């Protein structure tokens, strides 16, 4: 009895490749997680006038730069997908590398931002606004970290011309992380 690799990728009742089906399922659950979190924030923000003062201390420019960074990393991620579709593994790997760089920049800016806030006394326990701020942005940052790590593995494979279809899969996930930030940005930084 030799060890046989399961061939899940070829078995699909929906007509969607299994890996892509799986990532969509993950995102379906993420919609509820992040959607619920943001919905709860909106309700509290409206019901609690005192949150306005706390919200006015978030640093719009840092949030804006990070929005730009994530949008750009989404762009390189989709270009990587395009390259992978044409079978250009090396180029896909390079573009994934840029995306990872974007993730690192995002995290560095985020750390700098949080550092300043924590030093100024705006910690997760300061009040409900800051609790939410760190919970939502923190959960999002965890997704950025996870995405960057997975992307690293996929980039290495892609460089060797292996498992190119995964480039699209991680891309879909990455764009979702971008979409979450697209909503977090106005909620936490713009509408004050």
């Amino acid at each position: 009895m030799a060890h046989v690799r399961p061939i899940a990728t070829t078995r699909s009742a929906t007509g969607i490749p299994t890996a892509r089906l799986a990532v969509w399922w993950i995102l379906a659950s993420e919609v509820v997680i992040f959607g619920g979190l943001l919905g709860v924030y909106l309700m509290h923000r409206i019901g609690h006038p005192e949150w306005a003062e706390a919200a006015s201390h978030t640093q719009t420019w840092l949030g804006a730069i990070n929005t730009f960074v994530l949008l750009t990393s989404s762009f390189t991620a989709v270009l990587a997908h395009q390259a992978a579709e044409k079978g250009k593994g090396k180029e896909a790997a390079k573009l994934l590398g840029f995306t990872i760089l974007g993730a690192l920049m995002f995290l560095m800016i985020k750390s700098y931002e949080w550092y300043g806030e924590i030093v100024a006394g705006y910690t997760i326990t300061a009040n409900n606004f800051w609790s939410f701020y760190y919970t939502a942005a923190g959960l999002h940052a965890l997704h950025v970290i996870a995405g960057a790590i997975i992307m690293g593995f996929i980039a290495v494979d892609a460089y060797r011309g292996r498992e190119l279809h995964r480039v699209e899969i991680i891309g879909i996930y990455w764009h979702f992380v971008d979409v979450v930030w697209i909503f977090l940005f106005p909620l936490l930084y713009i509408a004050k």
Partner: protein
Amino acid sequence: MSENNDSHDDGHHINYRGIYFALLILFLISVAGPEVGERLGLPWITLVTAFGIALVKARLVINNFMHLAWEKRIMKWVLATSVILMFLMVAGVAPDVMNHEGNNWENLAAKEAVQRGLAEAAGYSDGEGEAEGEAELVVAAAGFSAATSYGQICATCHGAGGAGDGIAGAALDPAPANFTDPAFWNDPIRTDNLRERVLTVIRDGGPAIGVSALMAPWGALYTDDQLEEMVDFVMSFRPDE
């Protein structure tokens, strides 16, 4: 490309660069929104540029980068179900979270959180951005003055001149007491043990004298002597008759 070669990869060509530039332009508009809104005195512009644009951006990314537009229909249904469930959840709890009282209930904790927050905010906005927890110390340490303390804490609701017209007060029901109204002082519930009553309400909050909990307890902020000074200060608003 073997196992990945399904319908959705063929037959559509997306101008990724174009989408990216569109996203950047939308992003710039959303950042500029509040400035424009402020200059034109139209605060709702911010809402449109912030959330309207977020929706458009999300749509662009989802359709063109995630290729959901070309995905099999079943996947759209699965995702739509998630979105609908999320909205159901939010809509279900929204009335309880956004209101702090209803026909037969009152959320005292939420109300107290509101005025504690407002009072803190008032104490800080003119300070040097001290950490929240230090508010009390600041008030207590820096040579106490009832007028200053009133200005920092009570004025948000009761108004700088004591007329019950503070910025936060406008939103409250019942309205904060108006100390410049003779009727307030002449009300029979106050005439008997006026000083006692004012002191109790400042120290222990509205419920201690049977009025609204929107008037929070401030006892923790003051020593006994300082409390007396606060009472004097509040009573100084009383118009001569």
